[in-house]
């Protein structure tokens, strides 16, 4: 009897905990399939076989909206999302409130970039920091494609830059379908469709290219499959 009561209480706790929170996951696709890091994948729309070896990026200032009203903001300011580590791709919100829009930024803001060493996801040991020049790498995308005229056909995009005129922090605002299952989709085919891999395969410092490429990724993000 006591056991049953305990179980009931436990179940209730679990239930009330889950009802007060919800989560939202990033999903990545290549060639209309879920992205597999380190696996060569054919994309019909690109007519190319690509392999992605790393896809990591910072997101910051995550806020949920219902209509015009902001209903919830995440306390943790920055998250490092790594397509290879599933546990990093899920955002958890401690609110049960309904929302129909999410806004966030891809990258690290200029204040965080100019205030010294930070810990957690922002620790420079995460490999998302330039060393010869101060600043976070907002997004890393590395891999290979036969289209790249490079050693081992590799491409490397280390995109960042926080100060004028190369501030690459990218705003994203996404409408979310009400009631249905919600997710944030980054289809990499859309990114590669916009760039000319035989000519643009290496961006490793702040500048126009980095800012432009981050914008292309930002624009490709969607809440529908």
């Amino acid at each position, binding site marked *: 009897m006591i056991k049953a009561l305990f179980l009931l209480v436990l179940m209730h706790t679990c239930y009330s905990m889950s009802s007060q929170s919800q989560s939202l996951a990033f999903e990545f696709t290549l060639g209309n399939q879920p992205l597999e890091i380190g696996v060569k994948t054919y994309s019909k729309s690109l007519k190319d076989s690509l392999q992605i070896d790393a896809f990591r990026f910072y997101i910051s200032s995550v806020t949920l909206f219902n209509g015009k009203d902001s209903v919830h903001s995440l306390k943790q300011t920055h998250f490092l999302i790594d397509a290879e580590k599933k546990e990093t791709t899920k955002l958890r919100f401690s609110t049960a409130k309904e929302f129909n829009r999410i806004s966030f930024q891809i990258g690290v803001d200029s204040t965080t970039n100019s205030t010294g*060493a930070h810990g957690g996801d922002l620790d420079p040991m995460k490999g998302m920091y330039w060393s*010869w020049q101060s600043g976070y790498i907002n997004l890393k995308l590395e891999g290979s494609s036969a289209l790249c005229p490079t050693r081992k056909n590799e491409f490397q995009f280390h995109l960042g830059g926080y100060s004028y005129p190369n501030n690459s922090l990218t705003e994203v605002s996404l409408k979310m379908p009400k009631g249905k299952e919600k997710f944030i989709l980054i289809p990499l085919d859309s990114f590669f469709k916009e760039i000319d891999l035989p000519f643009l395969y290496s961006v490793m410092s702040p500048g126009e290219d980095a800012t432009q490429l981050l914008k292309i990724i930002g624009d490709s993000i969607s809440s529908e499959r």
Partner: protein
Amino acid sequence: MKILISIISLFFISFGLGVNKESLIEIFPADFPEPTYDLEKNPLSQGAINLGRVLFYDPILSKDRSISCASCHSPYNAFAHTDHELSHGISDLIGTRNAPALFNLAWQSSFMWDGAVNHLDVQALAPLTSKSEMGEELISVISKLQNSSIYPDLFMKAFNDSVVTGEHLLKALSQFQLTLISANSKYDKVMRKEEKFTAKELTGKRLFEKNCNTCHIQPLFSNYQFKKNGLEIDSTLNDYGKFNHTKLAKDSLLFKVPSLRNLSYTFPYMHDGRFSTIREVISHYTNGITDKTAISEELKEPISLTSDEKTDLVAFLLTLNDKEFVFNKKHHYPLEILKIN
């Protein structure tokens, strides 16, 4: 239980801050301006200063364990690299710049000769990963430190956490470097009315204030801004200073104004170490600038000094040597922390 832990930690945090506030007053000279380094984000503690000091002198930071920070920033040279125009790294590789002296860093808001680094905390990442300096990767240093016999304990004493992180490593290096304060030269003692200038030094000071004071402002003897000082480009290095990282034409040939403290310990001079004596530097400003269009406003008015005036100016500049700073054992190899006799 959680609440209890929070209360206990809150007690320790507030107690810790109290101690730190006191130590700040001790560290920063009363007659210096407000430091730019934000100590609230990295409150000084003896544990972290000690850790930073041990790290500074440990070649474990370099790829082949051959080079420490002190290899190019020697305490006896006011943490510069005397007699070397350009700094050396692992495998005898030679860099492209003259290692700058390290002192009074809390008053600087950008680092390196070209200002590519925006905060003291993240400065160490540049030499650590540069192929011609330490040639290492942060993640690999962290694993070497975590597996060492001394560091987990030193990190524990510094940050109450024996897990080595990049943040703590960098903050500890900052803390030690923040303690490198040069404020006890003859100049400082005269300003505090403890000593007096000689007649020559006093003449030199007047000449200094007429000709050099706009950029090398007292008491730090630099405004830590970036200027074009008319040095011709060295075609073996092709170093364009700030332009190298901003790629903006207006930044071409801009280099950081260095402090003039401790000149006797820090030769050679300039970003590429091209001058080995103070007199050569002064002569550059009086007769060495060939292209008057490619210099900063402050230097547009020609500087003219007689030979005697140059001697007096040097006499004043030598009063900026801070022997107490250079021989301060608290800044030297950490024998007592490592318990080496």
